[in-house]
Structures are given as C-alpha cells and as structure tokens.
C-alpha cells in the first residue's frame, strides 16, 4: 500500500520536533515578553528578580498613552490617521500599478522586455535603506520632502511586487487570454476583466506585504513637521523619554503589531500560494 510517510525515521522526527521547539521558543520569547510588558503595572516592570508572568494585569499603560497624548501638541488621532492613510494609499496604488505593469511583462512581447526583466530582479537587491540618501536628494530638489508624497512615492518604485505578480501571471493559461482577444477585448479589457480577477492570490499577497512594510515605516528622514509624523515615530519619541515610559512603550508596540499580524494570519494561505511562483526562473 501507498505509505503516507516515506523515509521518515523516528530519530529524524525527534530532531525536527526538537529543533522547531528550541527555535520556536527563541522566536516567541521576546514577543511574549513585549506583550506581557504591555499589561504590567510599573511596579512589576522593574522587579528583581524578574517575573515571567504578570501578577496584576492592568490597562493603565494603554490609558497612559491617551494621557500622555493629551499633553502633546499633536493629537493621537493625527498620528494614527497618517500611518493608516500612508499605508493604505501606498498599498492600493502600488498593487494597482504593479499588476498593470506585470501583465505585459508576463504575457506580451515588446522590444526591451528581456532587459526590463533583468533590471527588475537586479533592483530587488537595492532595498529602500540603501537608496535612501539619493532619494532624499531627489525629493529635496523636487519639493517633495515633508509631504505625504515623500512617504508614498518611493515605495511605488519598488520592483519586488512587480516581480511577484509577473511570476504569478506567467503561470496563467495563454489560451484564456487569447480567447478574450478573439472576443474583441482590448489589452486593457483582458487585464481588467480576465487577468486581474483571476490572480487574486497574487495581489492579495502583494497588498499584505506592501501594507506590512509601510505600516512599519518611520519616515524620520523625510518628514519633519510634527503633524505629518507616523505612529512608529511617535512611539520612538515615547520610548526615548526613558525607563519610566517602558510600560507605555510596550503598550504602543503591542497595538502597532496587531494590524500586520492579523492581516498576515487572515491571508496566509493566499500568500503561500503566491510565493510558490516567486522563484527566479530563466
């Protein structure tokens, strides 16, 4: 009979479980700590010896965020709006532009296509940290510094998303596209009516990855006006105030980590489906 598990020794299974357990604990421990710190009263945060559980869980740290903010010049809602607006706007625009660009790159033939393919893979090497300085220079010369554009536009120039969707569309059957063309669809029609709806896992994945990256953006080098600053920057300002703010800082980072975590958990199966096509073939 066909066996479910081929070539699987008990010894090997023990190694697998042990390794995952050790690495899992190493991974989870700091996250666990930052979560429980958010619910610790100040008296428990700096106990000697430290405690690995919370005795008197409290929401005071969360209340303190609001209290701290009521003294600030810029209301809390403004930072939240900035971060949500920038993350959502970047995601929506980038997903649309990247899918639109990925379609001809995957399915059309035009002069320069091979070169652009190579350029795209090559450009993945250059992360935004590496190109930050010349981008800053460009934006200062075009008056984009200290505006929402400085936060949104550089992310739109990323090539990884285009690469991801391009690989996924590449696996889409050609005869479906050809049939739509025979029915009289223009290339834009083919894209909007056939391709875009069919590659939903790809753009869901891209949306999630873009959202996560931009949700965590600090923008400290391109934004100077307090009312345009982002939530993580505000958090850094709280943390920088010293150890008596440790509880508040933990509460803020707990809140900040929820949107990316939840969005990834909800979309995981589509992300994994898409990433299967993400390899570099030739």
């Amino acid at each position, binding site marked *: 009979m066909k066996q479910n598990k*081929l*070539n*699987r020794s008990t010894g*090997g299974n023990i190694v*697998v479980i042990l*390794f*995952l357990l050790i690495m899992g604990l190493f*991974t989870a421990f*700091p*996250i666990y*700590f*930052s979560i429980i*710190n958010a619910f610790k009263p100040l008296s428990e945060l700096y106990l000697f*010896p*430290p405690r690995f559980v919370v005795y008197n869980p409290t929401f005071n740290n969360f209340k303190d965020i609001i209290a701290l903010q009521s003294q600030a010049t810029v209301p809390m809602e403004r930072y939240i709006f900035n971060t949500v607006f920038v993350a959502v706007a970047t995601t929506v625009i980038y997903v649309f*532009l990247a899918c*639109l*660009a990925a379609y*001809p790159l995957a399915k*059309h033939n*035009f002069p320069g296509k091979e070169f652009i393919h190579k*350029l795209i893979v*090559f*450009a*993945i*090497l*250059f*992360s935004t*940290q590496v*190109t*930050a*300085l*010349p981008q*800053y*220079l*460009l934006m200062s010369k075009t008056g984009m510094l200290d505006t929402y554009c400085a936060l949104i*536009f*550089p992310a739109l*120039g*990323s090539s*990884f998303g*285009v690469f991801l969707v391009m690989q996924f569309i590449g696996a889409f059957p050609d005869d479906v596209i050809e049939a739509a*063309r025979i029915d*009289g669809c*223009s*290339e*834009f029609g083919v894209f909007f009516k056939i391709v875009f709806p069919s590659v939903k896992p790809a753009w869901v994945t891209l949306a999630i990855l873009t959202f996560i990256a931009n949700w965590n953006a600090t923008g400290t*080098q391109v934004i100077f006006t307090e009312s345009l600053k982002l939530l*993580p920057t505000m958090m850094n300002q709280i943390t920088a105030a010293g150890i008596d703010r440790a509880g508040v*800082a933990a509460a803020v980072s707990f809140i*900040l980590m929820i949107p990316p*975590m939840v969005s990834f958990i909800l979309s*995981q199966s589509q*992300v*994994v489906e898409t*990433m*299967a096509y*993400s*390899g*570099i073939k030739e």
Partner: protein
Amino acid sequence: MKKTKRPSLLKYTESYLMLGFWFVFFVFFTLIPIGISVVISFTDYNMLQTPHFVGFNNYIRLLLDDEIFVKSLANTLLFAVITGPVGYLISFIIAWFINETGRGIRPFLTVLFYSPSIAGSIYVVWTYIFSDDSYGLLNSTLLNMGILKKPIQWLTDTNYNFYVVIVVILWMSMGTSFLAFIAGLQSLNKSLFESAAIDGIRNRWQELWYITLPQMVPQLLIGAVLTISTSFAVGAVPAALTGNPSTDYSTHTLILHIEDYGNTRLEMGYASSAAVILFIIMVATWFVINKGVRSLGKD
C-alpha cells in the same frame, strides 16, 4: 486573427502604456537614485554650493583617511557574512522542518517564525532583555542564579554588543525569503518522492539533496536576492539597540555612516561614494551566489 491585423506599433503602445505608470516611479525612485549616487560620488556636492568634480578624491579619503568608514565597512561585511548565510540557512531549515510537520500545525508555525520580521519595531524589546543595568532580564536572571557577580553591559561593552546585534538580526531573519521557501516546499511534485523511494532514496537527507533542492532552485535564488538586500542594509537594529553612534563605533555600519555624512553633515558627494562602494559589494555578492545556487540544479 484580430491580433495580427493590428499595426505592430499600436500593440507595443498598449504594452508600454500598461508598464509605463509603474515604470515612471521605478525610474525616478530606484534607477535614478542609484545613478545619481554614482555621479555625485565624484563631486564635492554639499547641497549648498555648486558641486565640483573631484575625481576619486572621495574614495581615496574614505579608504585612507576615514577610520570610521573602514570600521563600518568591516562591520557591515562581518554582519553580512555571518547573518546572511546563517539566517538564510536557518530560514530554509525551519521551512523544511515545518513542511515535515502535520498540515494542521503548519500555518501556526509559519506565523510564529515570520512574526519578528513583520511586527514592526517589536525588536526594541531586546533592549529590555539585554539592558545594561541589573534590571535587564538577562542580567537579573544571571545575577539571581549567581552566575554573574555584577551586571554585564551587553549593549555598550564592545566585547559583547556586536554579538547582541547578530542575535537580534538572526531572530528577525525569517522574512520574505522564508515565505518563498515555505511555499516552494509545499508546491513540490509529490510523485517524485514516491518514485525516488522505489529507486533507493533512504532518508530525508538524501531526499533533500537529490529531489527537493534541485526543484527549489528558483525559490533559493529569490531567497538569496532578498537575503543580500537585507543583510548589507543593517543599520536600524544596531542603532536602536546599541545607540547611534555606538561605543567606539563598535556596531557602526555603512548605512549609518552614509546617513551620518549625508543626512546630518550634508556631505552628499562623500556619503555617495560610500553608498557606491556598498552597491558594488552587493552586486558582486549577487553574481557569485547566483552562480553557486544555479549549480545546485545541474547535478
């Protein structure tokens, strides 16, 4: 067919138009920045005065006259050489082992290992774990157990802080490449494993070497690109943990050096020459690794 009747130029116009919207941003925010770095690295541009061409002066000054640059270059290379391959390998092993577990637990494990790289600035919790005073989690635990007599300055003592940064970077190394590995492993051709068992493959090690890895070359390549892209861009983590600048620049990196000279001192020409050196190292690394990974598929 309708397609062939169309004038070819019009067909290209549609393709270029669809590509064009994104391509404008790509050119303006990715290609041109790389290009202008190269150009202004040969000038004394400082954003205030008219730039002059200075030849290789910036590069000569970097290499011969700037001890902090040499230090941060060495640190960047050391961080990349350690965290790049180790992080890549751990990502693959964890993805491979997760694939060995049951279907039910896989999504949970994937979220767990991926979470440090998406949970934003959560890594600052490590400053609490490695805090220099006796209230730091590690110090107080070790003091309490009697292993230490007095607290170790994990974040400021130059004997330790480099390793602390490495630990934290490795903790965050299960990123997008990890997802690509997970996905690649789940989409492998199952029937190959059955026929391989008949052909005499005896254990998972042989399975990995002879069946899995050759099929995974595309994912391994994109993983390599993404790993190079992050492991040479180390900067935010040491700055947050060990301060910026760190004690004796012990964890200073090229990214931090570029920021310091570019954004703070506005010596754009000089900072750009450091950026160009970083670009060259990254591209060279990619060419070497690209060759290496591709040879895996050829056996």
